[in-house]
């Protein structure tokens, strides 16, 4: 157990130290990517709504059930 921890410690101390700026850039990029997916949903729902009202105005669809 002690030897395993020593090996991990040795391996870890050789790695690069974390950079705050890099982490912030990665975080903002991920946030923008997630926000972009949300915007795609928003634009899609706007487009569907516009198409619905266009078809309704043209008379191709109706929200009134025929009796």
């Amino acid at each position: 157990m002690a030897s395993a921890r020593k090996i991990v410690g040795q391996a870890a101390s050789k790695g690069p130290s974390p950079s705050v700026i890099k982490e912030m850039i990665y975080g903002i990029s991920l946030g923008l990517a997630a926000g972009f997916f949300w915007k795609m949903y928003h634009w899609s729902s706007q487009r569907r709504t516009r198409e619905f009202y266009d078809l309704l105005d043209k008379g191709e669809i109706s929200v009134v059930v025929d009796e």
Partner: protein
Amino acid sequence: MIEVFLEWRFLTIAPCDAAEPWQLGSQDAATPIMQGIIDLHHDIFFFLILIFVFVSRMLVRALWHFHEQKNPIPQRIVHGTTIEIIRTIFPSIIPMFIAIPSFALLYSMDEVVVDPAITIKAIGHQWYRSYEYSDYNSSDEQSLTFDSYTIPEDDPELGQSRLLEVDNRVVVPAKTHLRMIVTPADVPHSWAVPSSGVKCDAVPGRSNQTSILVQREGVYYGQCSEIRGTNHAFTIVVEAVPLKDYGSRVSNQFILQTN
């Protein structure tokens, strides 16, 4: 298949213009104002997602790096002028981007329609509503008035929603500018129809006005939104009909009410 599962699990679609069990999102918009409210919500939600993902990532990575074996010697950072300026300015820019569409919507909601086709007065009582159509009578004639009671819980017909239906609906023409005047007869009430984006308080001694343009025919459900006693949250049901059918529907309603 995955989309259906995700929609079932995480999203509730509201096929009708009434509240649905476990509903997460808004009801479908029936007026331009409600569509504007939904669009504003989507705009603000973009910033919410951006900030949430960024902060969560920084938190997780900070916890990840705070490891006694992987990083035995932590950085001792006392201050950083550049980052402090950035983290002050950047979050103050975000509310500016939110404020622009928000104020645009707010002022457009306050715009008064100069010449609405129809004016309907909604009077709140404990515990029902009465509606007046005063456009078509001369000064000495009585207005067309009817009461609207919520159908009790043990009395609905098959297909009716529990505690959402009324005996007499407010019939309005679709695709027509309306003016609603809201006032109470006793205690404060509030005339609210979520799918129309309308919530207008009824304050004793005052008449409040709101404008509505219903874009499609349908039946829209709302509830009183100002608590006032035992049978609070009685319902409001607006039925939008084609303009050509409006006259006959309203006159039929008054004939039934009179009988």
